[in-house]
């Protein structure tokens, strides 16, 4: 009889246990949010761990930088950044100094000019500096669809084998740069 009663007690205490476990989990998520180890906004990409989709894009008209194709992203000298951007996008301006800093460190940045007019894109670069190793134009944004781009700016880190290791939708701020981009580039170097 007491066995039945004990089992009943145990059963009725179960919600407390489950709630406590969930609480601990939520707490860990929150502290992870604050120290950056937990980030739900790092949008998962179907491409993570895979090479980029096939494409071949022309250069931006009037630019000295060559365009590139998916083949150019296989077998890289060092981990690289692929950056979708546009001159009409305000967050791209916020992101720009970080890209310039990466370029200064010698990180290859492959730029894809997304739904932009060539003169506007070139004016943007001549006014603010050109961080790109290569620059391709995707005026209809069709390659961006294959990549699953949410919007500009959006960046991908590729390791030396050309496998996508990281994806970020939004401007690379100084924080993102220090917390994500640099450690990743170091890890895959």
């Amino acid at each position, binding site marked *: 009889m007491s066995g039945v*009663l004990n089992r*009943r*007690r145990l059963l*009725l*205490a179960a*919600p*407390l246990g489950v*709630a*406590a476990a*969930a*609480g601990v*989990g*939520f*707490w*860990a*998520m*929150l502290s*992870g*949010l*604050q120290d950056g180890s*937990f980030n*739900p*906004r*790092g*949008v*998962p990409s179907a491409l*993570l761990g895979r090479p980029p989709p096939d494409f071949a894009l022309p250069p931006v008209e009037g630019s000295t930088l060559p365009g590139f194709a998916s083949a150019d992203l296989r077998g890289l000298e060092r981990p690289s950044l692929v950056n979708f951007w546009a001159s009409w*996008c*305000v*967050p791209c301006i916020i992101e720009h100094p970080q890209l310039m800093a990466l370029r200064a460190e010698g990180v290859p940045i492959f730029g894809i000019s997304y739904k932009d007019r060539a003169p506007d894109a070139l004016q943007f670069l001549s006014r603010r500096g050109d961080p790109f190793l290569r620059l391709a134009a995707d005026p*209809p944004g069709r390659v961006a669809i294959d990549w699953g781009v949410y*919007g500009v700016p959006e960046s991908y880190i590729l390791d030396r084998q050309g496998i996508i290791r990281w994806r970020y939708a939004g401007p690379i701020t100084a924080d993102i740069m220090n917390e994500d981009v640099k450690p990743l580039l170091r890890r895959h170097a």
Partner: protein
Amino acid sequence: MIPELGHFALAMALAFCIAQTALPLWGAQRRDARLMAAAVPLANAAMLSVLVAFICLATSYAVNDTSVVNVVQNSHSAKPMIYKITGTWGNHEGSMVLWVLVLTLCGAAVAGFGRDLPSVLQARVLGVLGAIAVGFLLFVLFTSNPFDRVWPPAPDGQGLNPLLQDFGLAVHPPLLYLGYVGTAVTFAFAVAALIEGRVDAAWGAWVRPWALASWGFLTCGIALGSWWAYYELGWGGYWFWDPVENSSLLPWLASTALLHSAVVVEKRGALKVWTVFLALMAFALSMMGTFLVRSGVLNSVHTFAADPARGVFILIMLGAFVGGAFALFAWRAPAMAPQGVFAPVSREGALVLNNLLLSCITAVVLVGTLYPLFLDLIAGRMISVGPPFFNMATAPLALPLIAAMALGPLMPWKRADLWPVMQRLWWVALVALAGFIIALVLTGQRALPALGFAAGLWLIFGAAADIIDRVRRAENPWARARALPRAAWGAAIAHAGMGVTALGVAGMALSTETLVALNPGQSTSFAGYEWRLDGVRDSPGPNFTARRADVSVLVDGAVVFTMTPAKRTFPIARTTTTEAAIRTNGMRDLYLVLGEEREGGAVLRIHHNPLAPWIWLGALTMALGAATSLSDRRVRVAAPSRRAVAAPA
């Protein structure tokens, strides 16, 4: 001056609520009538204080007081007055004030309508409600003060967020909050019952109306949110199993289970512990939803400005209320003896089945919502659990639930035979079967939508059969129908509403869409109409630029109507919104979205959504059922006075 007054009123409300928590709970423990009696005036005072604070905030919005940070961030002088005022709760801080206002309004309602409630129970319920209000007021005052000033005042507000200038979005949050806060009241009743160590029929009679009201508001709130997603997001879908949507669905599922099990407590005195558990669970799930949405743990299109510091506060509150309540449950519930024996096949049995299935659906949705978060936390892997999982996992649970929904109301209490009940439903089964076969033939043998049609017909005609069965043998069926308890009508209406929604969902499963690129003057035929693009033009708005397409819809070469879908681009917010053009005739929606423009032409996405409006029509009918049930005088008067006789002085 007005913001300071509002701030002060909030602080006053906090003081009242602390007193409202401490005095009645202590008084109930000591059986001190004077301390307990303090609960009612304190609850009213707290409500009035929060009301003053809310009016102050709304006034700051109405006069566009740009020295208030909250107004600067979320409003603008050029907004229409109605959206200035609805903007009061269109942001995190303001919505929390609204939340507390609704909570204290409920407290005042318990104080006002609860005069016949046993005074100890009333004191404890008000005490618990006071404690919840204390938590939320501390949260507002310390982490989300809407009355903070900025100096010098900004020239004008920054928030002309046009996405929020929308009727649906103005009404959606208050409705959801009414629902969420309603679960706080049933929670307070459950905690009071646990402290007392006693649950009886009168308790069930008291909890049921609150559960019903909160369920009705949640139903409306969720339906409105889904409708907004349908017409505003331009994806043609109505439910995306988005984590934020799920976190409003979870309390709804728990409330649905609660309001059914409360019936068993009220009528038969059984399922007490389970009902208490559901009441705790419904509130726990609402709180968890609040936490997920506001802490930034979730990633969703719907989230408010996220702030981990706020998350910590809500989590502490969640831990205190939910953890405390479950600890109390673990301690006190074992002492509540099970009562009320019934056979597995009986009204009680049907309601238990309802509860089991609803709990399983709740568990599935809960796991699907939280699993990605916990996997990310533990394994560091990102996955997203999408509609395929939810659809596949909930459909096998929903179908038996729907099957039982028509049977249950026809069963007598205590003990029933399945056979006579089935006999009374044979014609309903025939209608459902006919619907299934017809749908199967018409849709080209697609089983799942056909099953949905059958389910919808089964529910609607099952509800009708329930009413017919009750009045059939009366001399004057019409008089008998009028004399039926409103609760019976309410249940039938709500079940039929569920059927209407099921038909809508089944219809939407048959929706078709096409993507065409047209140049001006070109046309395409789809869904029995010819669609001609007449042109795309600029149509500037106050703070956005819009491209608007004119599309003529023709039948036999004659223009029947025109549709004008648009795309709005907000340069400052860097967002584009689609304004789908929707043409409905009640039986189907034609849904037209403007896509990319290319070389003078444009890409059009055309959806043909059969029975789409029925989804929301059904939800409204469900809420109407709740309202009908609540309008019963017996709900408000008879049940408590029955209990008042036994009330300790």
